[in-house]
């Protein structure tokens, strides 16, 4: 009996201390049957990418409410490319202005969830868009 289990890394990059959203999302993913590697607060992009590679996750979900998304998130994308791990899908959530979303998507962030997004909506997106390898 063998079946691929979906593995997700959930973390918070930068100095942002708002972790309520990230914890709620981590729990929702667990309840959806995924294995969540929760790395907690204050992660550098390098730490996030190394952890994602060691844990062999299918995707990374980052939570940012500090306003630093335009620098931190593209950096994670770039590092994934440098480490030949661009098959790991990156998506995010938090306080992110509408106007910034197209730029983030162009940088390689697959989806952006803002306050008010329901956990059902987020879990459904993951199920539809991430196929465990």
């Amino acid at each position, binding site marked *: *009996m*063998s*079946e*691929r*289990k979906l*593995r997700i890394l959930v973390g918070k990059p930068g100095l942002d201390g708002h972790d309520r959203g990230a914890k709620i999302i*981590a*729990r929702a*993913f*667990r*309840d*959806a*049957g*995924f*294995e*969540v*590697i*929760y*790395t*907690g607060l204050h*992660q*550098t992009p*390098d*730490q*996030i990418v*190394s*952890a994602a*590679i*060691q*844990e*062999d996750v299918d995707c990374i979900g980052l939570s940012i409410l500090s306003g630093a998304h335009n620098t931190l998130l593209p950096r994670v994308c770039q590092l994934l490319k440098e480490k*030949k*791990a661009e098959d790991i899908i990156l998506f995010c959530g938090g306080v992110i202005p509408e106007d910034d979303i197209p730029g983030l998507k162009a940088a390689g962030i697959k989806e952006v969830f803002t306050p008010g997004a329901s956990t059902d909506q987020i879990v459904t997106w993951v199920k539809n868009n991430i196929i465990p390898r």
Partner: protein
Amino acid sequence: MALAERILDGDIRAAARLMRNIDDNLPSSRGELQELYSHTGRAFLIGVTGPPGAGKSTLVDQITAAYRKQGKRVGVVAIDPTSPFTGGAILGDRIRMNRHAEDEGVFIRSLATRGHMGGLSRSTADVANVMDAMGMDVVIIETVGVGQDEVDIVRLAHTTLVVMVPGMGDDIQAIKAGILEIGDLFVVNKADRDGADKTARELNLMLEMNRYAPGAWRPPVLRTEAQRNVGVEELVGKMDEHHRWLLESGEINQLLQEKNTSLFQTLLKERLFAEVYGGVARSGKLSEILEGMLSREQDPYSAVEQILAERLSP
């Protein structure tokens, strides 16, 4: 190139992928493990167990740092429970170890129990083997930490560390049956809190009641403050001392004998069951037996005997 070959070449992604294939029980992982086996057996395996929140992960982080200072490469396998209701898990041990994430001499892997009992996942021994083959000098395994019947770790590690916290006197009484036998070292962590001395004394007292043959290992009781990195150097010194004692006393042979027996038994059990049960289920025989049992015309005892006779007769 096959994963095993890439792993021996130092490819981190290949190692991470094989660990996942092992965890997901893909048949291909067995071939890869066969390839790697002759490259294993070099790492010093340390087990860390103890009740939830005792500070196991924080301690593992500090032990990792101490071995890194000695220039040793360190692998960490950290196990957390799978939710029995959803099959999902939140693996949070890494939170305490993030500072090592970028260090190429450290490889950390989180595993979920996926229904396996005994404090480890089914895959733990094999994942530790992959780290061994990667050239890790030390592999630290953090168990789930239910505190009781975590005996599996003893069959896997060379040295088992039991982490306690002050004020656990009564708990020690309650769980002593298992816990005193499994520890090669006992640590009273959070020694900054009241009662650390008392807990250490009680532990020592209970250990005194065991009889130690001359030359036998008497588990020491140490105090640490993992958070502030107090007492960790000494702890690492004691762990190394235990490892040396294993080698010099020849006790290591007995340990490896038990460890290998247990590994082989587990493998054989798993494969035999999958093979035989799978066959019985596929042939439709299983539903026949179950129907028979329902009407009491077929008893399960003779059904099993019959299957065994059919499958195992030459």
